[in-house]
C-alpha cells in the first residue's frame, strides 16, 4: 500500500502517512470515573502518533477541562453526541477513513451514552468490517462502578479488544486481574508509571506536548527533570509500540488464517 496524504478535518496542513501497515485503529480511551487519567492517555497516544509521523485524528467528548483539545489543538477537536446530527458527524467519520488513527477521549459523563449508541448502531462491528481494529483502553480504578462498567463493555462487545490501563497514580491498590481481567488476545500491558508531583504539574500545563520532548525542545523543563520525563515517556512509548506491533501481528494472523481457509 502506498503512502497517502490525509487531510485532518481540523488541521489546515496535511500529515503524510508513511507506507502504512494496514488500516489504522480506533482507540477509545474511557472510564466512568473522574480524574483517572483518560485525557493523559489520550494525549500520550496522540503525541506518540504525531511523533511517529502517523496521521491521527483525536476527538474529545469532554465537557469539563482540561481537555484534550487544550493540549493538541492541531490534532484534536471537541465533539458532541447529544443529537443524531452530531452523532452522524462523529461516527460516520470514524468508519469512513481507514488510514488515519483515531483516538476518542470519552468523558465520564458521556460514557454511557457513547457506548449505548455504539452498541445500537454496531459501530465496532462496522469498523471491523472496514478492516479497522477498535481498541477500548479502559482506565482501571478502585471504584466499584468501574468494575461494573468493565464487565458490561466485555458483555456488549465480546469481539472487541478491551485492554485495562493502569495509571499507577490511581490503580496502585487495584489487584491485577480480578475485576479487570485481561481478556484480550493481545499480549500487551499498558501501565502509566508514577511521576513526581512537580513533573506531573509541568505536563498538566496547557499546551504541553510530549512531541516536544522527543524533539529536544522542551517548553518549560530542562536538565534532570527533562531527562526524567523523557525516561518516563520512553517507558510508555515502548508499551505503545508493543501495542501497535500486537495489533499488526493479529491482523497478519487473521489474514493468513483467512487465506488458509480459502
Amino acid at each position, binding site marked *: 500500500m502506498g503512502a497517502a496524504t490525509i487531510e485532518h478535518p481540523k488541521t489546515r496542513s496535511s500529515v503524510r502517512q508513511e507506507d502504512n501497515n494496514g488500516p489504522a485503529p480506533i482507540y477509545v480511551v474511557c472510564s466512568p470515573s473522574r480524574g483517572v487519567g483518560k485525557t493523559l492517555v489520550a494525549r500520550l497516544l496522540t503525541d506518540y502518533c504525531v511523533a511517529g509521523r502517523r496521521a491521527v485524528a483525536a476527538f474529545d467528548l469532554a465537557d469539563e477541562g482540561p481537555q484534550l483539545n487544550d493540549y493538541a489543538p492541531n490534532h484534536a477537536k471537541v465533539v458532541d453526541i447529544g443529537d443524531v446530527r452530531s452523532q452522524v458527524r462523529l461516527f*460516520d467519520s470514524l468508519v469512513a477513513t481507514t488510514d488515519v488513527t483515531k483516538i476518542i477521549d470519552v468523558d465520564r459523563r458521556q460514557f454511557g451514552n457513547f457506548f449505548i449508541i455504539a452498541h445500537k448502531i454496531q459501530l465496532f462491528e462496522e469498523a471491523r468490517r472496514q478492516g479497522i481494529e477498535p481498541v477500548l483502553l479502559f482506565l482501571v480504578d478502585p471504584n466499584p462502578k468501574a468494575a461494573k462498567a468493565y464487565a458490561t463493555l466485555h458483555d456488549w462487545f465480546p469481539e472487541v479488544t478491551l485492554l485495562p490501563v493502569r495509571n499507577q497514580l490511581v490503580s496502585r491498590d487495584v489487584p491485577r486481574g480480578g475485576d479487570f481481567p485481561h481478556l484480550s488476545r493481545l499480549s500487551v500491558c499498558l501501565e502509566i508509571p508514577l511521576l513526581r508531583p512537580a513533573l506531573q504539574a509541568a505536563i498538566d500545563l496547557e499546551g504541553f506536548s510530549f512531541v516536544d520532548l522527543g524533539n529536544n525542545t522542551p517548553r518549560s523543563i530542562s536538565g534532570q527533570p527533562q531527562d526524567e520525563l523523557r525516561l518516563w515517556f520512553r517507558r510508555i512509548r515502548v508499551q505503545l509500540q508493543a501495542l501497535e506491533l500486537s495489533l499488526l501481528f493479529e491482523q497478519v494472523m487473521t489474514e493468513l488464517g483467512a487465506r488458509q481457509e480459502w
Partner: protein
Amino acid sequence: MARPAVILLGADKGGVGKTTVSRTLLDYFADRKISTRAFDTEWPKGTLKRFHPEITDVVDVTSVPDQMKIFDTIETSGTQVTLIDVRAGLMSPTLRALRDIGFLDMTKWNQVTFAVFHILGPSIASLDEIAETSKLLVDARYFLVKNFINDTSFFDWDQDTYNSYFNRIPHAVEITVPKLSEMACEQVELASVPFASFIGNKKRNGELAVNSFVLRGYVRHWLQKVWAEYDRVKLCDVISKADPAATAAAAAREIAPAAAASRDAAFAALSATAATPRIFVAKDDAGTRDAAARLQRQEPRVAESS
C-alpha cells in the same frame, strides 16, 4: 400448503404511520421468504408503491375492476400474503363491504387467513373505531398497532379508561412500533427504498448508496425491534396456517341468495355511483360456481374471475 393470507392495514386518520407499518411488514415477509403482493389504495399516485414498486399495485378501492383485481385473485395469485394498505378513514367501510360480499365468511370457513392491522391514533376517536371494527373481526386476527412516531403519547386519559376499551376486545393483540429518529425517517424517505435496502446501503437499482452509517444503524436497530414484535405475536404462524380439510367442505357451500342482494349496497357505499352487483367466484370453486349459476338465473350479471 399454507392457505392464502390477507392483511388489511388501516387507520382512522392520516399521519399515524400506516404506510410505515406496511413497509415493515413487507420487509419482514421478504426476509422470511414469504411471497407477498401489496395493494396501495392511495389512488392514483400511491405512497407504498414508491418503496416497493415490484410487488405493489396502486388501486382505486372504490372501483369494481380494482376490487376484482384484489379479491378475485387471492387464491390464484401464487403469493402467500396479500397486503392491502387502506386509505385512512376507509377501514370500517372496507370491512363492512368485505363482510357483505362474503369475504369474511371465507375466513370463517378457513379458506383464507385474514388479519387486520389497526394503526391507532392518540385520540379517543380511535378507541371508538376499535370497538366498531372489532365487531366485524370475530374470525380474523386483529392487531392494534401503537406507532410511536412524533413521541405520540397514546390516550390522554387514565389507565382505567384505556383498559375499559381494551377489555371489551379480548381477541385483539397489541403491537408496539417504537419511535425512529426523525433524521433517519427523513433519509429513508428520500432514498425511496425498502428499509432493508437502506440498511444494506443499497440504491433501488442495487448499486451501493452513500447513506449515513449511523442512520443505517438506527434504522436496523429500530426494524429489529419491530420485527421482534411480529415474532412475539407469532405473525408467521398466523399467516402460514395450512389449508385444512374444511376447505373442501367450504368449496361446496352455497352463497345465500339473500346475501347477494346486499353486496351491491355495500360497494356502492365505497363507490361514487351505484355499482352493478358483482359476485366473486374463484374459478376452481365448483360449489360456488353452481351457486353462482343458480343466481345468474335470478340476476342479470355474475362476474367470474379470470
